[in-house]
């Protein structure tokens, strides 16, 4: 708790991902407002979007064999950071370098609810760039890993959300990606599957892959990760040992909760006082 000094900068040895002052700003349009209106109305119209500065000049480097947990409050920029590293969301400043195309565990978007689990494996797999022959080869592994042997010919919409996320995880890791990014997906599986996916992630780390894991569950971060990043409003607050960072984050959350409770208490007191003084006040005016 005493060392507040800035750690000396270190040159990465064998980096897999480097973020160099990465900055992401995006616009949220209030509505699907017609932009062509600009042509007719001119420039001096009122602003119809909100700019969100989601990631503010982040720099870090990861080495092969690291599992990096990312923690932070809702809207702290965790998911945007993952998507920007994967090149899915354009960055507005800085650079990202990677040793392979990062695979975001997001095959869910490619899956079709109305077709069978079997065909969805091919659909999701080919979306990730895995060939049909390769999928034929790994098909049984995928199904077995997801634990869906009896259900694989049912349409996906008949699957529970846990079954779906198991299938997703199995497809995304079918061909071990060098860089895998997992966004909150593990929390949906049951305990037994969580162990299996954790084991899979450790295996990947062992094969010198790099894993990024965004989760609100500090336990899954401290269980699997070798390092943790703490984001707060798009800024990097801490970067280091997952247990230490998670503890510091937990302290921070506890402090916020306590402050919030105190604030609500004060507000309540104020209201009560106001109610008490209501009569004389109105009489006075």
């Amino acid at each position: 708790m005493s060392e507040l000094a800035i750690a000396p900068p270190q040159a990465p040895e064998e980096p897999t991902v480097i973020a160099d002052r990465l900055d992401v700003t995006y616009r949220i349009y209030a509505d699907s407002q017609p932009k062509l209106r600009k042509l007719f109305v001119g420039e001096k119209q009122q602003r119809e979007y909100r700019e969100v500065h989601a990631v503010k000049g982040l720099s870090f480097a990861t080495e092969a064999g690291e599992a990096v947990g990312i923690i932070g409050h809702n809207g702290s920029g965790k998911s945007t950071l993952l998507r920007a590293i994967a090149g899915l969301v354009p960055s507005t400043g800085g650079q990202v370098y990677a040793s392979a195309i990062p695979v975001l565990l997001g095959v869910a978007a490619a899956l079709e609810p109305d077709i069978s689990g079997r065909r969805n494996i091919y659909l999701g797999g080919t979306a990730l760039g895995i060939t049909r022959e390769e999928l034929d080869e790994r098909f049984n592994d995928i199904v077995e890993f997801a634990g869906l042997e009896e259900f694989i010919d049912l349409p996906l919409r008949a699957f529970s959300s846990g079954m779906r996320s198991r299938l997703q995880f199995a497809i995304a890791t079918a061909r071990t990606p060098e860089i895998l990014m997992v966004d909150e997906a593990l929390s949906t599986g049951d305990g037994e599957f969580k162990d299996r996916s954790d084991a899979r992630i450790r295996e990947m780390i062992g094969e010198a892959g790099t894993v990024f894991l965004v989760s609100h569950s500090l336990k899954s971060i401290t269980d699997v990760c070798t390092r943790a990043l703490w984001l707060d409003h798009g800024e990097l607050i801490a970067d280091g040992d997952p247990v230490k960072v998670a503890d510091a984050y937990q302290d921070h959350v506890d402090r916020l909760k306590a402050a919030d409770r105190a604030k609500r208490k004060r507000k309540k007191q104020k209201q009560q006082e106001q109610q008490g003084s209501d009569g004389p006040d109105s009489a006075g005016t």
Partner: protein
Amino acid sequence: MASDRHQRPATGLPAPAEPALPDDVLATYPQLRRVGAKLPLRDYIRELWRRREFAITVPLGELRAQNQDTSLGQLWNLLNPLFLIAIYYFIFGFVLGVEGRRGVEDYLPFLIVGVITFNYTRSAMQSGARMIVKNRRLVQSINFPRAILPISSIVSETISQLYALPVMLILLLLTNLTDSVVIPTWYWLLLPLILVIQALFNLGLAMTVGRFAFHFRDVQNFMPYALRLWFYMSGVLIPITEELIANDTLRFILQLNPAWSIIEISRDALLYQMAVGWKWGLAGGWTVLLLIGGFLYFRQAENEYGRV
């Protein structure tokens, strides 16, 4: 709106160490690539080819899913043009009396080929305009060459057209029951070639409209009117001939229209047993131009499509 300043939470941990990066990262670490860098054209096309399964599986799945819900399902894709043909025949052929003028001795077959051919390009343009917005979640989750999206929407429309074309041929033969004369000839074998040309033309169109509609969302609202105007200007309902359009300049401009040349080469092959060189040249030229131009234009914004 300036984002409100937040206090950095106290951590009790050392401030995160910034990595000491060399001036030229890529030279120091040869294994790294810049994320978001444009793939060289050759690699891009190779990535597209590797995902060909995906480009085909998505529309197949969609079509199948469509089928499951309604009993008439896919049939509606055929019924819509049929109703349109019936209405246009009644209004233009019967009420306004286009039939029998020079160039349209047989109005019904003329109309059938025009409507079915134009319909393919129309639906390709519509789905092209929708595809980026519709697949936003996919774009934000998976790295793939974005040109897969227009390709798969054209595959989907082409499959629908493959159902429509035999129906069109049967309809054409049925018109012999009226006083029309439609004879199947060797020229009908040009139909697959015309389909390929039109598919590539539609792909170029979908890529162009796709990016444009991504930048300007309201393009989708204009689309029905633009398509209607294009429909009337493409000689679907009336022939673009000297008899009907006397002004030389206007006729010339209308004939430059790529949709017109594609409809014309279809009519020539199916109804008039001929293939006119300059019309084919026009259709082919437009296709090459739009396909290359549309691809380059679409790819230029490759990394932008994930923007929220």
